[in-house]
């Protein structure tokens, strides 16, 4: 009993068991979180490399570095990797896993073994996705959207890639139900629903979407695989099917998936801003309400991806109206974040810089989204580089920057060591500049009418593309610098105390790194998550 007790007390990075096996078979949520951290960020780097290759190809009109077929595979894999392997699991699987039980005052998630299974499924899906690069007749070339009929007839490894997405979806569902159960069942009894950190609320809303929407993608991709292998034809007009139904089913999942991606990011920002302004978050309940509203209403707007598809005008009317209504809770959140800073005491530490640039970039993404929600203008910019730019502003500028903010905020807690702040600030500046050059010029080129997924383009689009490509290099430098700094900080940085930022949520009350079962004594909730009176930096 004694040895067990001491094992519980040691920090989770230094259990008696050593080696790879103590990680990849660990059911500890923090270790699983770190497994996700390593795997997700590795795939992120692969995705960046593919993205850089795409931009390089577009540096000049005509063939530049690869063939058309290779280019098509590149953007397909860039999309599949970034969407399914990076941005969807990103914040929930990495930080959700590490923080959810800590913030709830729990010892672990409800189903630790299921949690490990989720990671294994994630790795299986990733392996299948990488496997689809080889064998058969080449990597998939359908785009990450797998639109039929093209995906049903192309000879490339679409079935394997679709199976990979299916498996990854399964992993996502299991993570979601695990989180939901944990929030309902393992919250420390001292914490009421309205005392929960906003990050938890965002994970809660996200998890519902994961559980309810992901299966639709699963069945849709399954039908594509069956169409390819058995000639099923449920989307083939020659067999009584309808290609538009594929798009409906696909976006029934994939639009809510956008909220799976962004909501946890919003949760992160809601945590960081109060800490670095030393002020209670402005309008806690409004933010909670808008989180749930986004999750719910976000499931009703999938049709705005289909305004030009041949869908009925009635559907265009309803989906457009609802799309604009979803904009409102997002706006409320932005206003609340900014208002939190009012009369606070602001520190521009690296997490705060990323959080503030999140607000800017996400606002750009959200506001350009209004153009896409309005059916008239959408017709012009739909399927152009404008959409690509908009999408990257929300997903990369939004979720990506939120993830970076979160890593700068919480990694010192997880590893007990601090990175170099000056390098972090420099990396942020490069990253932010490169980002705007890259995606800003993409949007302009799109407004001029350059369709997306174009291997070759007319000479009038050259300038915008060249500026974008130059921006992509700057962006890549910023990212490498940032990750290098974080990695160095986690392994060899200055040791920090339990609460380096002076935050008020429960995870900061335990040691850094936390012990195996998170808290030595059952944590008591003595203050609200944003009540900084008397909280000291330690």
């Amino acid at each position, binding site marked *: 009993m004694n040895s067990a007790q001491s094992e519980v007390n040691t920090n989770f990075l230094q259990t008696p068991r050593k080696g790879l096996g103590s990680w990849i078979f660990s059911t500890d949520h923090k270790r699983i979180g770190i497994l996700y951290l390593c795997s997700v960020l590795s795939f992120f780097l692969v995705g960046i490399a593919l993205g850089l290759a795409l931009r390089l190809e577009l540096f000049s009109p005509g063939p530049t570095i690869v063939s058309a077929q290779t280019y098509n595979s590149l953007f397909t894999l860039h999309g599949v990797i970034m969407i399914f392997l990076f941005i969807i699991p990103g914040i929930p699987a990495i930080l959700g896993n590490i923080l959810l039980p800590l913030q709830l005052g729990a010892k672990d998630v409800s189903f630790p073994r299921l949690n490990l299974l989720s990671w294994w499924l994630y790795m299986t899906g990733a392996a299948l996705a990488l496997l689809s690069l080889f064998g058969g007749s080449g990597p998939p070339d359908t785009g990450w959207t797998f639109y039929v009929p093209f995906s049903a007839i192309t000879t490339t490894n679409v079935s394997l890639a679709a199976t990979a997405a299916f498996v990854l979806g399964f992993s996502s569902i299991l993570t979601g139900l695990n989180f939901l159960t944990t929030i309902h069942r*393992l919250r420390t009894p001292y914490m009421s629903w309205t005392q929960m950190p906003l990050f938890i609320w965002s994970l809660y809303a996200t998890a519902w979407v994961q559980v309810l929407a992901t299966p639709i993608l699963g069945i849709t991709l399954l039908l594509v695989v069956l169409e390819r292998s058995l000639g099923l034809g449920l989307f083939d007009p020659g067999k009584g099917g309808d290609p538009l139904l594929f798009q*409906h089913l696909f976006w029934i999942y994939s639009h809510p998936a956008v909220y799976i991606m962004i909501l946890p990011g919003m949760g992160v920002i809601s945590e960081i801003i109060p800490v670095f302004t030393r002020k209670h978050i402005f309008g806690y309940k409004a933010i909670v309400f808008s989180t749930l509203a986004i999750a719910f209403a976000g499931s009703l707007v999938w049709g705005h991806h289909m305004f030009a598809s041949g*869908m009925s005008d009635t559907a265009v009317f309803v989906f457009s109206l609802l799309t604009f209504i979803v904009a409102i809770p997002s706006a409320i959140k932005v206003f609340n974040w900014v208002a939190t800073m009012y009369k606070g005491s602001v520190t521009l530490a690296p997490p705060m810089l990323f959080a503030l640039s999140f607000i800017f970039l996400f606002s750009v993404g959200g506001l350009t989204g209004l153009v896409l929600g309005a059916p008239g203008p959408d017709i012009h910019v739909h399927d152009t580089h404008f959409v690509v730019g908009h999408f990257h502003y929300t997903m990369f500028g939004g979720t990506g920057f939120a993830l970076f903010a979160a890593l700068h905020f919480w990694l010192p807690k997880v590893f007990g060591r601090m990175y170099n702040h000056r390098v972090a600030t420099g990396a942020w500046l490069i990253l932010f500049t490169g980002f705007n050059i890259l995606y800003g010029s993409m949007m302009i080129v799109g407004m001029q009418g350059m369709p997306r997924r174009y291997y070759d383009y007319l000479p009038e689009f050259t300038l915008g593309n060249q500026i974008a490509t130059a921006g992509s290099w700057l962006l890549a430098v910023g990212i490498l610098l940032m990750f290098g700094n974080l990695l160095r900080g986690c392994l060899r940085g200055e040791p920090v105390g339990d609460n380096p930022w002076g935050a008020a949520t429960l995870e900061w009350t335990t040691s850094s790194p936390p012990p195996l079962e998170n808290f030595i004594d059952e944590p008591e909730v003595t203050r609200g998550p944003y009540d900084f009176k008397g909280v000291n930096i330690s």
Partner: protein
Amino acid sequence: MNDTNSQHILSYALLLRVWAALLALTVVTVGISRIDLGALNIWAALAIACSKGTLVLLFFMHLKYESRLFAWMFLAALCTLCIFIGFTFLDVLYR
């Protein structure tokens, strides 16, 4: 925390009665399907299927004896499915 682990045990008699009702409803639905009611047929079949489903949910799956939360969650899932089907018809019906 483990307060609600205490279980309601359903009697065999109740389960048998539910089963009998399910069988009866099956016979009814087959019977109705043999009469031509036009479009009503599909709605009648769905209505009977829904009542059968409710029986299974409430008794076989113990939803009646779980905390109210489970029922709300189930309704949320069901509503989501209905929305997905319903909204797709915004396109299909008016195309």
